[in-house]
């Protein structure tokens, strides 16, 4: 009996000790959990998990990064943030959303972290400036992009065509392409009306000149000035009268992502006007065919011509939730990304540089041999051209909400012939004045 009692107490003692050690080890090794909500994408999610989340978590013992992939992130995020909840790292579709969150006091300023970790020196200047609100750094760029002209290189070589450098060459090339029974450009807006702003932004900058666009953005020029009216009227002429995009306005409205990529690959159209987010899709479309594709910056559309500009655009941004209990740790996650060029480039390469193209100061030697040569050329030329001041402005990065929506939503009214280009730009100017009165304009770095 004594032996049994002794055995019982010894076992209990061992069990209790084991439980105590287990609890102690959990307490000692407990990591700070940082949650990041990201927009879900079936192809990209596993890459983010494996190459960012897992790598970060294995690189240190203090922070556990958890990335949650959400459908319709924008709406879920806004609801959570307004309710005082939400993730530690806030991913938004761009500066116009950051502005709303920042105005509402829902974001934490990252100025102290930027100064501590030297982010200003790591990022391209224009991308850093786009995240400065009321003098403080609130949003870090997660991906940058630009609008380009894609063309069928094989087709161009067969016909002796060249990428145009001014308006008359542009229209002459279009006529030749149409004479061959092809569409000039493949593109479409079905399911995504904001597609129109891609074209609007390209024409405003290429016709009216980025310097004038800059002046209008900062209020030194009116949007109903003749150069802007001329730009949208030219777009109207090319879209409606000439049917440059997919043959007609109605076709442009009816075609979607898969349609216009297929049309481009099958020589239904000679060129495509689109953003750099399409690199992966274009590469896939041309994968099994003998034709090759190439890209060029969208040409200067004045009669005199000139250097084409790359339009500055931020695809998504990262900020820290004002309600986050661990902003320091959240900042460390962002810092890890900015200080790991190799990791960023490896992931961006997986997406063919259509996503997670963080605007760090890359050099030629940063790119491995596995980077697509066309994409490498884009990254280097973009950095060089924008470094020299050859850049313009996309509407979704630099326009406040109301004028930003007017640009694409009311473009259809212009194209339908219900209003003139002048009336369209006068309405646009009114909305800009309203945005300025409400202090709703977005940061534009000094040119």
């Amino acid at each position, binding site marked *: 009996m004594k032996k049994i009692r002794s055995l019982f107490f010894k076992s209990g003692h061992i069990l209790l000790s084991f439980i105590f050690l287990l609890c102690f080890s959990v307490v000692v090794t407990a990591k700070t959990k940082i949650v990041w909500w990201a927009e879900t994408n079936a192809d990209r999610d596993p890459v983010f998990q494996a190459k960012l989340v897992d790598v970060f978590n294995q690189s240190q013992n203090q922070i556990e990064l958890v990335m949650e992939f959400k459908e319709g992130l924008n*709406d879920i995020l*806004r609801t959570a*943030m*307004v309710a005082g909840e939400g993730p530690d790292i806030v991913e938004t579709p761009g500066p116009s959303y950051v502005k*709303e*969150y920042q*105005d*509402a*006091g*829902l974001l934490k300023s990252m100025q102290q972290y930027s100064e501590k970790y030297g982010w200003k020196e790591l990022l391209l200047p224009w991308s850093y400036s786009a995240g400065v609100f009321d003098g403080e750094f609130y949003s870090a760029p997660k991906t940058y992009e630009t609008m380009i002209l894609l063309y069928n290189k094989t087709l161009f070589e067969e016909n002796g065509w060249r990428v145009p450098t001014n308006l008359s060459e542009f229209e002459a090339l279009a006529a030749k392409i149409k004479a061959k029974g092809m569409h000039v450009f493949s593109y479409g807006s*079905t*399911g995504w*009306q904001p597609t129109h702003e891609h074209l609007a932004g390209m024409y405003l900058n290429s016709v009216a000149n980025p310097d004038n666009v800059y002046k209008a953005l900062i209020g030194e020029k009116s949007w109903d000035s003749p150069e802007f009216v001329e730009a949208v009227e030219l777009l109207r002429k090319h879209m409606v009268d000439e049917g440059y995009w997919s043959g*007609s*306005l*109605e*076709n*442009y*409205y*009816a*075609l979607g992502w898969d*349609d216009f990529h297929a*049309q481009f690959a099958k020589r239904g159209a000679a060129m495509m006007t689109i953003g750099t987010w399409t690199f992966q899709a274009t590469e896939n479309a041309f994968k099994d065919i003998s034709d090759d594709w190439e890209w060029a910056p969208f040409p200067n559309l004045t009669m005199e011509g000139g250097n084409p500009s790359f339009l500055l655009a931020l695809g998504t941004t990262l900020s820290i939730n004002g309600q986050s209990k661990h902003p320091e740790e959240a900042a460390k996650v962002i810092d890890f990304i900015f200080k790991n060029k190799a990791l960023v480039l490896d992931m961006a390469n997986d997406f063919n540089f259509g996503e997670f193209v963080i605007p760090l100061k890359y050099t030629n030697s940063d790119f491995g041999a596995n980077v697509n040569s066309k994409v490498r050329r884009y990254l280097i030329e973009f950095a060089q051209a924008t470094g020299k001041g050859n850049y313009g402005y996309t509407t979704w990065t630099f326009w406040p*909400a*109301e004028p930003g*929506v007017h640009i694409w*939503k009311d473009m*259809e*009214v212009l*194209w*339908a012939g*219900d209003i003139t280009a002048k009336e369209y730009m006068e309405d646009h100017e009114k909305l800009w004045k309203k945005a300025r009165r409400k202090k709703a304009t977005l940061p534009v770095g000094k040119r």
Partner: protein
Amino acid sequence: MNIVSNKNSVAWFFILPAFLIHLVVVATPSILSLALCLTDWNGFGKINFIGFENFNELFDDRVFKKAIVHNIIWTVIFLTIPIALSLTCAYLLTGIRRGQLIFRLVFFFPYMLASIISCQIWKYIFHPLHGIGVWLSNNGIELFEKSPFAVKDISLYAVALVDGWHFWGFLVVIYITGMYQVDHSMYEAADLEGATKFQKFRFITLPMIRPIFIFTLMIIIIWSIPTFDYIYILTQGGPAYSSEVLATHLYSQAFDRFNVGYSSAIGTLMFFYVLIIVSIFGLLQKIGWEI
């Protein structure tokens, strides 16, 4: 406590969960929305009271006026074509004994489909590269070369066609249920009198299903106001606002332009419109109409 009041208490007890959910999810946000229409809230930050400024702006908003007209057109379309079609088919179906269930299933099937699927089907039917227009063109018939959803003059009607195709089967099932409740002896008597099929429909079937018929009129008028999904998926209110309705305009104001206060004003006007409709039907019921 008597049996009747006991039964009432039990009934309330069972209704309570649904009532609470309705209160939290529907009623409370609706009431808050009525308050938001007097503010300039952008959906994120401070809420500032601005009185009736949103309503003043609404009455100058040409897109809002266009949307009202489109909603009226939508209501007229749905009060005529689907009703006429479904009444006719339901009446004809009552005369079919074998295979009637198959017909009912076929007519009702589109109603079971999610709106996104219905829209994708019709988008591809009218696709400019792969759709019926291409096939017809290859056979020498120039029709539907352009997708009707992309043509400004007919986009609203094209979307109404898709939504009508989805909806009419639901009306068939409702009407046929009502028609089966008509006393058969009335048809026998009519047969003896030598009444034609149309006369039986006109003088027996229609009057006898009047309560159901009026009910469907009411729900069509009410449901025509918040109509959203088919338009949003197929045309997003375009081209050039030619298919814009109140619900899509409200959505665009709230979620694209961050004018939540302004969009709440649109929602408030929609609410009062529906309230008036329901009140009219309530009044008709009070004066003895069988609704």
